[in-house]
């Protein structure tokens, strides 16, 4: 698994090619690598954007206004859940409990946590990421 995680960290997702390569190197059936990879929700096997937004949809976050936040993100990036922006910068996903129920609603952008979100706050955060891209600064957290 650390190998798979490493690949995901570098390339943001596991391509068929990399899974077959890993299997060859480890002398395992490719199906086994694929089985492990597809089991875990953080190991993506589809091409993902540079920033993966994971918004928590579990009960407390839902109660505390996750939907408004989600709408704000969708509106700003013009993508729905499970989609990636055409420029390949953002992917939007929903996920299960992130463990920030006392500061709901919460989301992860790559490995960075943002909590106590409101539609306004999320717009600010996203424009920060967008600017970061323009300035050509460091991409990853």
């Amino acid at each position, binding site marked *: *698994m650390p190998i*798979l995680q490493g690949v995901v960290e570098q390339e943001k997702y596991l391509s068929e090619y990399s899974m077959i390569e890993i299997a060859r190197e480890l002398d395992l059936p490719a199906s086994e690598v694929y*089985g492990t990879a597809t*089991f*875990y929700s953080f190991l993506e096997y589809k091409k993902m954007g540079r920033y993966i937004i994971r918004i928590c949809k579990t*009960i407390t976050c839902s109660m505390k206004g996750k939907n408004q936040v989600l709408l704000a993100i969708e509106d700003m990036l013009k993508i729905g859940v499970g989609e990636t922006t055409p420029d390949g910068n953002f992917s939007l996903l929903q996920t299960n409990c992130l*463990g920030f129920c006392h*500061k709901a609603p919460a989301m992860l952008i790559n490995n960075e946590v943002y909590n106590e979100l409101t539609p306004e706050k999320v717009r600010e955060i996203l424009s920060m990421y967008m600017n970061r891209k323009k300035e050509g600064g460091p991409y990853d957290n």
Partner: protein
Amino acid sequence: MTTNYQLKRADFIFKNENDWKEVLSKNISHPPQKLINELISSELKGRGGAGFPTGLKWKLSAEAVDEIKYVICNADEGEPGTFKDREILSKVPFKVLTAMAICGHVIGAREGYIYLRGEYFFLRPELNKVISEFEYYCREINFDFTIRIFMGSGAYICGEETALFESMEGKRGEPRNKPPFPSSYGYMGKPTVINNVETLAHTYTIFKYGAKRFYDLGVQYSRGSKLFSVSGDTPKPGIYELELGMSLVDFVDEFGDGDTKAVQVGGASGFLVPRKRFNETAIGFQGKLTGISLPTGGSMMLFNSSRSMFNVLDNYLEFFREESCGQCTPCRVGCQQLLNGIKAVKRGEKNAQYLDKLLRLTETMQYTAKCGLGQSVANSFSSIVENFREEMIY
């Protein structure tokens, strides 16, 4: 009735103590048997939710004969409404590491792992720093023990101990059959002690102050204090350390917003307690004397009267459906059918009696599912449907 118990705050876990070096060197000079007896007499039970006696767990692993053994700290905290382990690992990591090393001394293990959930990746750099400082000290006192972090990747089921081993071995996180239990056949098939983060932090308290200090807290069958993760409709969400055995009434008085309709005790896999039962419910491990006593991994979610219980249940079931590993049929198909079922009833496609059928399905799941996930779906489902039946239908 269990109303005699008051809400009592405790302050052990987060008390900032910089004497871990003394605690470690003092305790590893004691014979293992003495430490095990100390743990057993404290009656500490696992704080992850299942409540297995920790002393017994260590004892069984210590008795297992093998060259290689492991100590694993389960930090795959994924239960909705739980966030205590993260706070422990970020505020008092040395307590957990020290407890792991002492456990290593007791059972004869030289390697420890922390299985950290993928969502807590941001904890890792800091934790790694703490670990290298800790290992440095271990080398200084000639104590052979190493600790590694293993990252999870976003699977709730990997908090189940045998699924966690599978995951660490690089496989799909699917629970194994039990027995054999981890104490004889754990990670890599070796005897393994696997404890929750909070359990380990409590053992630190016990080894430092002695079992008596811990035993004096709480009530019969539920000794000691426990961290509670309070969230939902409450004016003061957060983490609180409370003595076990308190009545839910006192809890709601303290944390409710005055309009509390129900409390979910123990996260999505726990029980929902409606207002009319607050009085007769205590928080602790199952004891025959205390009437209704609910165990909990520490998650307390409060719902006020503006919340629809249908939405709550819908949310839980969706959670379970996604997080079911899909290995055994009762859980894989059961979760889907329960979710489809309550939606059909809500839309009027099925009549209200259909709910009784679904209740029987959860009963079947309780008996036939392989691991705790499938078995515990029945808890929240039946406690919500039975208490808020009309909300399910209309």
